[in-house]
């Protein structure tokens, strides 16, 4: 439900209507930033937001994203170590 996609605000296009241009991997679309303003509109330029049906619905919290990613990365590295051990064990098996 509710397809949402991260995009970056690259310009304010209509101050009065609170519209801005967002970029998603090189695809641009004008979106409403009414839900994510909390100060001067210009401050949004460069920010990452979550876009749904033409509205920026939420600002992406970079710290939280980093936190989640770090945890995942650690897990991944641990897995890599495990994989390497398993591989080692397997090749040892192969030798026997």
């Amino acid at each position, binding site marked *: 439900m509710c397809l*949402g996609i*991260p995009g970056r605000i690259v310009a304010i296009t209509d101050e009065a209507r609170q519209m801005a241009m967002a970029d998603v991997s090189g695809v641009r679309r004008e979106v409403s930033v009414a839900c*994510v303003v909390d100060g001067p509109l210009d401050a949004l330029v460069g920010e990452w937001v979550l876009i749904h049906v033409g509205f920026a619905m*939420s600002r992406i919290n970079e710290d939280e*994203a980093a936190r989640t990613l770090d945890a995942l990365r650690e*897990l991944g590295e641990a897995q890599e170590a495990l994989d390497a051990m398993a591989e080692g064990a397997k090749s040892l098996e192969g030798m026997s």
Partner: protein
Amino acid sequence: MRYVEEFRDPKAARALIARIAEVADAIGATKDEPVRIMEICGGHTHAIFRYGLDKLVHEGIEFIHGPGCPVCVLPMARVDECVEIAERPGVIFTTFGDAMRVPGTKGSLMQAKARGADVRMVYSPLDALELARRNPDREVVFFGLGFETTTPSTALTLLQAAREQIPNFSIFCNHITVPPPLKALLDDPWMMLDGFVGPGHVSMVIGVHAYDFIAADYGKPIVVAGFEPLDLLQSVLMVLEQIRYGRAEVENQYARVVPEHGNPISLKAIDEVYEPRPSFEWRGLGEIDASGLRIRPAFAAWDAEEKFGIGYAAGPRHVAEPEGCACGQVMTGRIKPTACPRFGAGCSPETPLGALMVSSEGACAAYWQYGGARVAAE
């Protein structure tokens, strides 16, 4: 793609899958006695199949596909009303693409379009409003459909129409809310769920505390989750960890997008424009109290129900679902799509009987398209 591709990393996925297996074993989950986790949201269902997660996780984990697809739960009577509005002379009926193929008793909107109705797909309610500005001699109706994620966008669009006093724009409001059907599911004595993966984009609007009752009143763990495969796997792991340690909490896996208390601007817009209906019909689930929204009388000028005297404005109407359709049972997790007697036997994406086969979010369509039922187990 920033904030997307990082969350599709196969290495981390393997690690999560391994950890899930560990915990599943630890809590004694088996194929025959699985841990049953409902992903409430159709978007999660879609991602599970798109990435094959159901096959990758431990066999003791069973995904139950919840009612969180606004297209799937749309009752036939509402589709019929869409068609009726769309077929009025002078109307341009605008909708998200999802709703085009849902069958009603008078066929789908796509069939109505083929018969001559002016039905147009839009990406955003703002595009519908723009159509109204450009076609002052036509009545432009937007089919407002969706959960709390989508509701603010139609509310803000309606407020914009009101500000500009655009007279030829209206919204046919079919917005619904997530918590009431969950409550209904949990109250069902037949139900046997062990935990929930919560819809992240809904919580982006309403925050995480809307689910407190699940943990507090029903003692079930729930993790609000993002939509990338790592998000889902991590959330499943978090649910399992809660189960392992006997916790029942609302956790937020998707903190990068979901603020604890949601989005105040969105909530204010929803509250300004909409009020709860006494009850609303869900396909397969029946009438659920206070589960739907309607436009407040102050905005009746932009309310298609009032404008056209249709829908709840004309008194509720029930249309029987097609015979043999087990959508309700699938949506409540009682049976898998493949257990429906019509699955593949009269019901397929080409000739869908129920909405679950139409919407690409629907569990039946997902089973069909991604082969949940058809790929030989590895």
